């Protein structure tokens, strides 16, 4: 217990709190006046805030919180802001709808607008699969090069966007299916091995000419319908060119074996129901500008 005299700092004559750490005592000085006033003001503001704004979590059954006199809701505010943005965009969007895709690309003003709009749409909807800037990934085509499975023209890209690829609930979707040669027992393992060598031979990479010889007739009977006799592919049915250096699912022996064994029929959703026509137009112009537009 400390007596009164222990509670006074001998040097300053100021009362201490009685706390002492390693001989250092805490003086019981009053708070600065301005500091106190600021504190009182914050208390007043917080009370006013609680009355005006949603602030207090409500009891069960009363909603999530008190609504406050101002009835303000961030959700509504965002909706209003988005509405304004849409309205501002609507003007230009109408111009987009009226113009042809070619005209949009030629018109400096509409082009810049579509590129900006297309980029943000692309980043939020398409980049998940195709990567930022359309850089692509294994199984997801690069959109910045000049290799197109289907159609790389402006209107071709627009069609793909509208209807997707192998999108089951859209009749106009781009459709084609490669048979599952191994899994469905259409070909034996040995036959698939021969086919792999034959395909590798298109790019001069086969190591067994005997296998290539054997594969030739198999390719002619099984594959050439879609990929063409020379393996050059067929755009109208999205059959890839097998003679170039570009491989959507990998060009190694094992990759090609897996492709023939299982087939790879990947999907792209149709965007008709999710994006409006103006957005799809802007996206088409953007994708076309990425580097490989035809």
């Amino acid at each position, binding site marked *: 217990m400390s007596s009164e005299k222990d509670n006074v700092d001998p*040097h300053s004559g100021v009362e201490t709190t009685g706390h002492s750490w390693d001989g250092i005592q805490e003086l019981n000085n009053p708070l600065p006046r301005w500091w106190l006033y600021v504190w009182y003001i914050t208390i007043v503001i917080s009370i006013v805030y609680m009355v005006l704004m949603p602030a207090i979590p409500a009891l069960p059954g009363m909603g999530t919180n008190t609504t406050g006199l101002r009835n303000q809701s961030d959700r509504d505010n965002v909706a209003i802001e988005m509405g304004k943005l849409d309205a501002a965009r609507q003007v230009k969007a109408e111009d987009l709808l009226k113009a042809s895709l070619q005209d949009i690309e030629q018109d400096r003003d509409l082009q810049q607008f579509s590129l900006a709009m297309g980029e943000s749409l692309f980043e939020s909807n398409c980049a998940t699969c195709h990567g930022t800037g359309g850089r692509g990934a294994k199984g997801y085509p690069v959109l910045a090069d000049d290799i197109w499975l289907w159609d790389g023209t402006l209107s071709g890209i627009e069609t793909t966007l509208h209807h997707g690829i192998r999108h089951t609930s859209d009749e106009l979707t781009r459709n084609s299916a490669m048979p599952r040669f191994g899994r469905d027992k259409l070909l034996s393992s040995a036959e698939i091995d021969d086919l792999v060598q034959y395909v590798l031979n298109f790019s001069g990479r086969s190591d067994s000419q005997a296998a290539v010889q054997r594969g030739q007739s198999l390719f002619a009977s099984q594959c050439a319908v879609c990929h063409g006799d020379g393996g050059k592919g067929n755009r109208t049915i999205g059959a890839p060119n097998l003679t170039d250096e570009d491989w959507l699912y990998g060009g190694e022996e094992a990759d090609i074996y897996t492709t023939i064994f299982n087939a790879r029929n990947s999907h792209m959703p149709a965007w008709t129901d999710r994006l409006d026509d103006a957005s799809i137009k802007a996206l088409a112009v953007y994708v076309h500008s990425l580097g490989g537009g035809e």
Partner: protein
Amino acid sequence: MTRITLDTSHKPGASPPPHPDLYAKRRQIYPKLAHGKFRTVKWAVMAVTLAVYYIVPWIRWNRGPGIPNQAVLADFESEKLYFFFIEIWPQEAYYLAGLLILAALSLFLVTSLLGRVWCGYACPQTVWTDLYVWVERAFEGDRAARMRLDHAPMSFNKLWRKAGKHIVWLVIAFWTGGAFVLYWHDAPTVAKGWFTGEAPLSAYWFAGILTFTTYFLAGTMREQVCTYMCPWPRIQAALTDEHALNVTYRYDRGEPRGPKRKSEGWEGRGDCVDCNQCVQVCPVGIDIRNGSQLECIHCALCIDACDEMMLRVERPTGLIAYDTDVAVAARAKGVPVPKYRLIRSRTVLYAVLIALIGSLMIFGLLTKSTLEMNVIKDRSPPFVRLSGGDIQNGYTLKLVNKSTEARRMTISIEGAPDAEMKIIGLESGSRKQFEVPVAAYGVDRYRVLVVVPKTEDIQQITFRVTDNATGESDSNRVAFRSGN
């Protein structure tokens, strides 16, 4: 000012003394009107600086269509700064940095030569406070009358004087805030729109803020701004030295001081008659006879006051004067007074730096181009291999046209003999160069794809843009990625 002193005489066991007052209340200062040459200079500086501030936004300057014809304008809408014939674009913000550096260095130079003349004469806080004190004096009279009025009970006389003063203060404050806004918009438009409610919201907002700060800082804060809020008094201590001119009480001549009767002679005493005039005129309320002090803004009003007194008692003027510490010390010791040295290592250094940066900026401004190109390389994907094996990189070219006419320009690539380019939206096909339109007074963007054959190993390429008519050009060297 009152200082906080801790009572260390307290002995343990004695009853505690009352708490020391840690919250010193401001002592009201009633600066008396000084007369003399420095006061005249101050009136003149005040008139000129205020006139510059209020008039400059109204100076017109023909800038062509679509741009306000204002000589000095910071235009947020077009993101440009206009200063008479100088135009600063966002890409040239370094001119602003240069200007700030120049301003700081000039302040350093002036301070090392003449002490705090900036504080005493030209600082806005000083100028507006001086103006406010002048208004105060017009309504309430000089020092003695003001003190009497403040201590008198409320009366009609006191009320109208006080009210009148505050109203005039507010009008000045509003005028000041309003003039500030004019620097950011076309002055006549805003001034007109102001009263019809058509001025931008930000204009009202900033005018409001400046009205408040002017009224508050010049009306009530005054010397407290200089003493407590302004960092400059601390910095200047590092800039001045014993060779800098400061407002100085020449104690070698003044001491011992004391009141003096006409009948007494001057032998055996100093020139200071302890009349306190120097203290009464001081706007920061200090006694310069205590030596140089943090609070002193070197306004030299105490010089005027003391000189007047010296003339009256028929002694030479200059008991308080602009002087250097070395000179006063020399006189006190009775050794020859050294000559004032303008040229010292620090003043030379500041002057050289100012000349250097100044001429760099002038050179930059004189050779400023009206055409600029910035190239941004696509990062994703960094490069693309085309079906034939050739490598393609994508770039965005920003062409800045700073002239008021639309121009046609040629974009070409250099540094890769077999490279070809394609520009999205222009007639298709790959070529070595393209002709493009660039809108008047703005920035145009073009998306460019460059293809280099796989046989060529290129790390960098150079884009060049050339004005077809004038031949003015700009180039930009950028990376070319091929994955190797």
